[in-house]
């Protein structure tokens, strides 16, 4: 099993969700995060006091799928989340050792289906 972890622009979350729905994927975990990459921060002024914000708001979407589905899923997320500008984010594919469904105690692929 693979965990697909996508860091995307907050405003692209809806597009990504509908792309996932098209693939028939229902389960996901979404978290608000902050991070920095190549995208520049921005400057705010409050009565002349300057604040530089370089940790920008992103959304992290995590989905665990069977090994063979991971690449297609990642590509679909990338398509949906892309604007072409710096700051679109990253997708990480991470091996998952084991999955347990808490309600039934099922393990492995069956637990994520």
């Amino acid at each position, binding site marked *: 099993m693979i965990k697909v972890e996508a860091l995307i622009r907050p405003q692209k979350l809806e597009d990504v969700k509908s792309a996932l729905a098209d693939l028939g994927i229902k389960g996901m975990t979404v978290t*608000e995060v*902050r991070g920095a990459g190549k995208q520049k921060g921005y400057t705010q002024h*409050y009565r002349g006091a300057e*604040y530089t914000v370089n940790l920008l708001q992103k959304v992290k979407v995590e989905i665990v799928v069977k090994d063979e589905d991971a690449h297609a899923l990642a590509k679909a997320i990338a398509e949906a989340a892309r604007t072409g500008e710096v700051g679109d984010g990253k997708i990480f594919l991470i091996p998952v050792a084991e999955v347990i469904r808490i309600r039934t105690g099922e393990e492995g692929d069956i637990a994520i289906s």
Partner: protein
Amino acid sequence: MTKQPLRTITTTTLVSLLAALSVNAYAQGSAPPPAKIDTGDTAWMLTSSALVLLMTPALALFYGGMVRAKNILNMLMKSFIAMSVVTVLWVIVGYSLAFAQGTPFIGGLSWLGLKGVGLDPQATYAATFPHQAHMVYQLMFAIITPALISGAIAERMKFSTYVVFIAIWSIVVYTPLAHMVWGLEGTKGFLAEKGALDFAGGTVVHISSGISALVMVILLGKRKDTSDSRPHNLPMTLIGTGLLWFGWFGFNGGSASASNGLAASAFVVTHIAAATAALSWVIVEWIAYKKPTALGFASGAVAGLVAITPASGYVGTTAALIIGAVVSPVCFNAIKLKSKLGYDDTLDVFGVHGVGGTLGALLTGLLCSKAINSTGADASATQFGIQALGAGVAIGYSAIMTFIIGSVLKVTMGLRVTEEDEIVGLDLSEHGEAGYAEVGSGEEGHSAFGGVH
């Protein structure tokens, strides 16, 4: 279109309510000369009192939006508690010390506990409306003045010490200054006698609080962590600004002590100065930092209101435009002093109220005209000198007395919360509550899902 009838009904209801109140005052007065009470004046003074009271909650919102989320309730409470503390003191002793017959520097004790402050007119202060209306109107000024200081000492001063501070300050600093400038019963106040013009409190309210704010932040020291002290809710600050602007019509308009042409004149110049100053702040900021900010607009509006306050009953509409245009660039630069000189005036009380109030007091001497108010003065170098004297006395007196009060409190009660409490936030450490759900660590953010959590 649909709103118009509603507004008319509300106004009518308000007017009849106030009229009913003044009729009631006749009924309760002991030896009434009913002919002397003017219902229009009475209605306007009671309305103005309510308007000025609203400025304190408005100030709470104005300040509250600018602090961090972990200190919001403490910031609001520092204004609201003044409504209670100052009211109680004013009834017992404050009004008498400020307005009763006494020395040129402080009033006497003849109106202690509001003895003799009744529902009949009072020849010196309230010729055509109940003396109690004057008392309660002046109370609203006494409330907001120490509350203004709370913006400077924000995010670190102990609440208990703050309450004791405003109680002492109200008696020791506010009442003598009010008496010197506005005391007219029997022996005139020292600055009133000199002819210093302060229509609605430029020296008494804004210079005194602004200078005291500066002294207190020097005694307190800086906040521990200001790496990110961005305002947590500027919409709140803008609501506060709007309500302050609204209330200020009572602050300045009511200072005519009558519902007449002078009240209208003060009302109009107040509005013009606020509007002009908001615009001039935005322009200056736009040039300096390339963006017109909402906080800049709010700061400018308040600076304009502060600066017109002493002048409002003595100047005309052109002067109001000038005052509004000048005050914002001056205050805009004054607030930069704190980073250069290294004091931590959290919300720029000195930069806006101290500097704006002083500028307003001085400009009054250069722009006043007897054509607006025959009891005032015409602009002259002499009048400018008298205004400078008035401002100087207010600066010197408030600075010295606040330094003494603050120093004594520093060694007795302590001025600051502990470093740990400051970092946790004063809402939790001082009040045991939180302004917003899930806030407490100061780590609040903005939701990608469309709300604030």
